[in-house]
């Protein structure tokens, strides 16, 4: 089941290589078919998932490297469930959208499918080595997608992105191996099974080191301020179909990593670093929003707004209570939907006007009423209008931060910074929306048309979800909650003597 979700896109990616380059129709059928099948399966997964069960479901295991006890082990819980659905959902949209791409379409969609598969693997892997493999697998297609199809300073952007992320992930590999060694030291049993490793108590000073290594990998991926500097370059260079997957799904792998690894494995380290990370996240929120105000390029504006929103997500995670983390997971879904919809809109505008520069855009509303309506809805969701989905996540996160024990004295400041970034969000979103759509323009190109049916169909599901999650978030949260609660109340049962020794 889960394996099918991962491997259908991957198999299609390889399968496409035997399709002739010129054969656009087959390419499209295979790619859309694979992404669609993956989405269909993940929706089936969503409905057969048992919301009350906090543990891993649909677990599949098969021995991979028996000598080292490395297994192919996948499973899904309430947190990864939504990430999988989000990834396959955005995957299909991104693939369909990339059909606009005419240059070397076959290779492009093959890489997109590989990226989707890698991201899905990260969300589903329960074996630490398998996780690492998928983690690196995500990097390869991204490298080519930006490097070959990108725009502007694409080589600089890719090199920066890849080296930055590699630094983080190699250290993570170290931490993964030492994790197993610690477990071996306690039980004389080699395992990379995350579910077992979670139960191992680790010496607090040891936790610090390992936490930092994991932290670096995840924090760069998210990214957390001030480790974010690859993001504007990469986003600016990245072609928009790939950007949908990049911002919608891949950026969530970092936040997911914190939830899956850091919180359960290193509780002591989380406790001591939470305040610092909370401050970094909040600083990123304000910083990203503030810079977004000064942006003239729509793509850059959305990129910086992403930094701000991802800061929100991190803040909720490190509030370390049910409300905050559940809000964060919900906000991961929301951000995936909203940011990708915004990038779609940017692409629609650029395709018609030939520019993304706010100074050159003006008064599109009369020619494009449908785009006007959808843009407004998405923009309102992005600035966190109460009643739409963005606000639900932000409210829960702020609630979590405010009632957080781990932030204690800092809560007030962090909430105020959150408030400031919300105010800024309304400013830059209105700049973006009003600047491009309203007022009067004398030099609109002749024959400017509204978005086509085909384009509208791409963005409509996102609009629907924006309203739906805003009106009725309960079914979403209900599936997240049990997994989060079990994560917060995890009891360490293995290697407890170390703890006694350390006292």
């Amino acid at each position: 089941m889960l394996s099918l979700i991962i491997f259908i896109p991957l198999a299609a990616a390889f399968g496409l290589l035997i399709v002739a380059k010129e054969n656009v129709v087959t390419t499209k059928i295979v790619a859309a078919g694979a992404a669609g099948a993956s989405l269909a399966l993940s929706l089936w997964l969503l409905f057969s998932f048992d919301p009350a069960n906090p543990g891993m479901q649909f677990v599949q295991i098969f021995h991979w490297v028996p000598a080292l006890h490395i297994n192919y082990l996948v499973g899904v819980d309430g947190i990864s469930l939504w990430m999988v659905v989000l990834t396959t959902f955005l995957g299909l949209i991104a693939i369909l959208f990339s059909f606009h791409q005419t240059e070397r379409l076959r290779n492009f969609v093959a890489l997109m499918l590989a990226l989707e598969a890698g991201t899905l693997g990260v969300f589903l892997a329960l074996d630490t080595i398998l996780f690492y493999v998928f983690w690196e697998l995500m990097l390869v297609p991204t490298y080519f997608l930006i490097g070959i199809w990108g725009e502007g300073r694409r080589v600089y952007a890719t090199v920066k992105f890849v080296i930055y992320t590699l630094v983080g992930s190699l250290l993570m590999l170290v931490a993964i191996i030492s994790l197993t060694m610690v477990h071996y030291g306690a039980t004389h049993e080699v395992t990379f099974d995350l579910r077992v490793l979670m139960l191992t108590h680790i010496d607090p000073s040891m936790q610090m080191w390992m936490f930092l290594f994991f932290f670096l990998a995840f924090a760069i991926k998210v990214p957390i301020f001030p480790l974010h500097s690859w993001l504007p370059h990469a986003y600016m260079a990245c072609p928009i179909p790939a950007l949908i997957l990049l911002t919608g799904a891949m950026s969530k792998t970092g936040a997911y990593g914190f939830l899956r690894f850091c919180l359960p494995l290193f509780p002591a380290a989380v406790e001591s670093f939470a305040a610092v990370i909370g401050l970094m996240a909040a600083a990123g929120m304000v910083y990203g929003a503030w810079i977004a105000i000064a942006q003239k390029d729509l793509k850059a504006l959305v990129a910086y707004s992403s930094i701000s929103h991802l800061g929100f997500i991190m803040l909720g995670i490190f509030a370390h209570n049910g409300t905050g983390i559940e809000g964060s997971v919900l906000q991961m879904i929301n951000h995936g939907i909203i940011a990708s919809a915004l990038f779609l809109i940017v692409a629609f505008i650029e395709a018609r006007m030939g520019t993304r520069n706010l100074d050159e855009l003006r008064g599109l509303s009369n020619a494009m009423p449908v785009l006007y309506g959808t843009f407004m809805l998405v923009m309102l969701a992005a600035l966190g209008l109460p009643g739409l989905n963005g606000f639900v996540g932000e409210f829960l996160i702020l609630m979590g931060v405010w009632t957080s024990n781990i932030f204690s004295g800092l809560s007030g400041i962090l909430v105020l910074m959150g408030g400031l970034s919300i105010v800024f969000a309304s400013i830059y979103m209105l700049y973006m929306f009003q600047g491009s759509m309203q007022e009067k323009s004398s030099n609109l190109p002749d024959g400017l048309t509204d978005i086509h049916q085909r384009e509208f169909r791409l963005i409509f599901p996102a609009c629907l979800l924006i309203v739906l999650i805003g009106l009725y978030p309960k079914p979403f949260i209900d599936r997240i909650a049990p997994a989060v609660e079990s994560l917060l109340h995890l009891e360490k049962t293995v290697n407890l003597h170390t703890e006694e020794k350390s006292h």
Partner: protein
Amino acid sequence: MFVSSWLVLLFPLLGFVGLSWYGNRISKSFVGLAGCGTIAASFFATLVTLSELLFLPAAERVGHVQTLYQWAAAGSFKLDLAILVDPLSVFMFMIVTGVGFVIHVYSVGYMRDDPEYSRFFAYLNLFIFAMLMLVAAADFFFLIVGWALVGLASYLLIGFWREKTSAVLAARKAFVMNVIGDVGMVIAALVIFETFGTLNFVDVFASAPDKFRPNDDAALLITLLLLVGAFAKSAQLPLHTWLPDAMEGPTPVSALIHAATMVTAGVYLVARCHVLYELAPYTMYFIAGVGIITAVFAGSMAMVQYDIKRVIAYSTMSQLGYMFLAMGIGVYSLGMFHLMTHAFFKALLFLAAGSVIHSLDGEQDLRKMGGLQKVMPLTHATFLIGALALAGFPLTSGYFSKEAIILSSYYAEMGNVFFWTVAVLTAGMTAFYIFRVYFFVFAGSPRSSSPHPHESPAIMVIPLLVLATLALLGGALGPWVESFLAPVFGNVADHPQDSALETIALVAGIGGIATAGVLYMVGESRLAFFKELLAPIYDVLFHKFYVDEIYDYLIVRPTKAIATFLEQKAERDGIDFAVDRVGMQVKAVSHGISLWQSGKVRAYALNMIVGVVTILLFVVFM
């Protein structure tokens, strides 16, 4: 029970959705019919709810929470989608749907020639829905939702003529200002949840008296944070600058949103949370103080403006100040009563002004009007009624509500002579500025360049007549309002009687009217000497105390400058540069050890493994 209360909300929502989807495909007359029909249906449903409520004994009329479904349960946070039916919410329903309906009908005539007729009615319906949501919410969360949706509707309607740059800017200003208020309310909600473990009005208010002693820090914090929202929405100092600019919207919008209903949301909020405010007497003083200062501040600015809509806008701010004064000194039902009469006469004034503007082809400058008395007899009569009510002329509705507040500002427990004096002074100013407008517009000879000023069509005049009737006779509803709201606010003590103070206030009002009249008769040219004498004051007032400019220098420009600074310095030259430098250093070092670079993949793999193992050893044996 109270199924009808859901219908009250449902009709305008259906109207909004329907008109947004199908508005362009149906005829104009049907759009108008649908837009007004939904509000009429909503008003009818309100009456049904009201009668259901009135069948209950007075004590059982409060606390009817109608739950639709559980909205969310995350961690310890649980919330239902629910509305609260009690006299206060039904009272607001009546004003919103009643006055709203009249203004919808008026808009059918006023917006007749606008190409985006259906969009206008869709937004108006959205506004009514949002406002009903705000007053119906049974908890702080959905209060905030309604609060923000109202702000959205106001944004959309201010910026309705989206090709006009000034309208776009005004809309943005209003939205951002309101978001600041929203954030204050969100934080207030967080504190409330932390303190009470719930956001539900009924539970919070029931347990508040046991939780707080008067002026507890938490009580002060909650009430002050809520006030940020209330002041932003109701245009009280210092968050008022958006309201005069909001006059960029079509005039019915100014009447509906920026006079009759939305701006009173802040007053409603204080009334709704009066249990909390009573536990924070310091905040009450603060509210009364800000209210009275705003009243005189806005009143003084209204005296010198030449844009007819701006004068009425400042007047709204000033009257809202009175309402906040009433809230601050604890005479809630008087405040709500003034809210109601104000809704009548201020909507009337705006619509009558709209009728004037309409007939002069969009002219808003007072200096270019005049002599319309004969040409527009009905508009003239209704405007006069509205002006008299605003000035508090005896036996009009404004007389009963305002006079009572002014008297209470001295006699209420928290009242004092300062509040009373300023309130009377403001009453004088009010009478002066509105009659200044009256004389400018209707008396004398025409100064307009418009060739054919004419009376407006019946569809605009009939709403004026309805509102004029209410503005004239609405004062009689006073005792009923008080007894109807008594289950919410508790029974009020006897009203103070003091004919001396009443007479002084009355004289102030009539004096204001007389001054306006005399100055007008004398004529501007002969007042040149006084004008010169008062020039500095006049200048400050005309430029709205330079608040916009001060905000621009203190907040707007620094924010933008810092944004640019962060982008240039912190981002490009700071973080990004530092990261690249690290990269270059590594590159330089690796040149030194490039001997290792044999070009063989196997060697690289070996190097990598050695590296990883080294770090691993380091970590494990540290």
